[in-house]
């Protein structure tokens, strides 16, 4: 089992979620993050001083999947999030030791989906 963390451009979220749907990955968790990466931020102005706004708004997606789904999940996210421009983001794959569905207490693979 794997725990996938992806950082994408905020406006690509809808696209990514749709792609995931298509590949039958329905369960995800989303949150706001700020990112500093290759992408040069637009510096803000305050009293005519430029604030190097190095932190840009990004969206973080977390998906826990069974190993057999790993590949297509990465594909789905990549397809949905890619614009080819700097700032598209990253996908990180972590090892997932166990998963528990709180409602039922199911453990492991069955708990993921």
């Amino acid at each position, binding site marked *: 089992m794997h725990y996938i963390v992806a950082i994408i451009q905020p*406006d690509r979220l809808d696209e990514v979620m749709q792609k995931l749907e298509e590949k039958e990955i329905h369960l995800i968790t989303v949150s*706001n993050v*700020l990112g500093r990466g290759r992408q040069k931020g*637009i510096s*803000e102005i*305050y009293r005519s001083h*430029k604030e190097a706004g190095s*932190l840009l*708004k990004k969206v973080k997606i977390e998906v826990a999947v069974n190993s057999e789904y790993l590949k297509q999940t990465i594909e789905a996210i990549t397809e949905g999030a890619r614009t080819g421009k700097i700032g598209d983001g990253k996908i990180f794959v972590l090892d997932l030791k166990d998963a528990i569905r709180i409602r039922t207490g199911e453990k492991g693979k069955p708990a993921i989906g």
Partner: protein
Amino acid sequence: MQHSLLKAFCLLAVSFTIHSLVTPNCSFAEDETSITATSVNTEAIAPKIDTGDTAWVLISAALVLFMTPGLAFFYGGLVRKKNFLSVLMQCFMVMCLVSVQWVLVGYSLSFGPDVGGWIGNLSWLGLNGVGLTPNPDYSATIPHQLFMIYQAMFAIITPGLIIGAFAERMKFSAYCVFTLLWSTFVYAPVCHWVWGVGGFLRMQGALDFAGGTVVHINAGIAALVTAFVLGKRKGYPDTIHPAHNLPLAVLGAGILWFGWFGFNGGSALGANGVAVNAFVATHVAAAMAGLTWAVLDWYFNEHPTMLGMITGAVAGLVAITPAAGFVNVWGALGIGVSVSIVCYIMVAFVKNKLGYDDSLDAFGVHGIGGIWGALATGVFATKSVNAAGADGLLYGNPSLLWIQLKAVLITVVYSAVVTLVLAKIVDATLGLRVSEHEERIGLDLTQHRESAGTLLE
């Protein structure tokens, strides 16, 4: 398809217009019935300042000015957060830009000595000759400059209303230029026709108490046209999500309702019975319209929505604007119910059929609501409320409705055509729309290098 629609619309209208212009006889016949809010008090002879009237118009002017920040939040709460400031900025810019334009040229063009019924001349440039004594032509009991500044507030909010149509995608520089041109070439003339001494619509006896034609139809049509010219927002309608901050839109609506008492009540230009009638009609229509919209939402969506209620209330305020000084409480109730039904159908059903992207329904509410209100005035108006007014259809005078219809169509055509021309000119020169990349990042950052709030605590 949309354009063909627009064309057809114009064609039809133009014919009407021509007709109404080539038949001065009927017009002149109605001269004496001619009346608008701005002449309600002109019977007075000795132009002596009345402190009570002055106090009421002073505060009314302040209230109308306050409506523009209100509008800023009403609109701003509904866009996506990344474009929040851009809407606020457009609203404040219109406050600054048009105020200056108004004292320099706008007022003279709108209310200055008449030139053939079409426009005011330039003799009042820079408020030359516009002093602190009353000008009986417009208001015999308050200083002329007070009338001028009160009207300035109307000139400010009118282009402000259009913002709702092109929110989230217009280049700020283009916005400034467009607004300046529009105030000068669309607002000023239409204002003169309806309210200026010698204005030809005023001569024909069209009733517009506080700006249904001049303000709402005018802005509403301009909204529709600019929405067409600019095209849809990227991702519309699928991935444009609901209001980023509905409570602030509610705050804006509250301020608008509050300010509208100055907008309509103040249009009596005095603290008199007409002002009171307008005040009451305004409040009742707003309440009734808000209630109606809630009921419609309840019926069609099983749930009354906050956005629906404030939209309804604003629609009611829009529709009662031309009628406020001419209808009784029943008329106000009637206008309130009907306008919500009409606008609801428009924004909930028709709009999607037509498929243009009027971001915040400036046309759906102000355009349609304004047209409805102008016609409803022709139906519900009664001299029993305001002798200086006229009787409408319900009171046995169908001709008024006809006059109102003409006024509406003329305004619609003129506003549509000239707005289109101006928009195209600005587009050809500066470009109206931001780049796709800028639109994606949002206008706050790309146009103003600011963001509505810090994300980290």
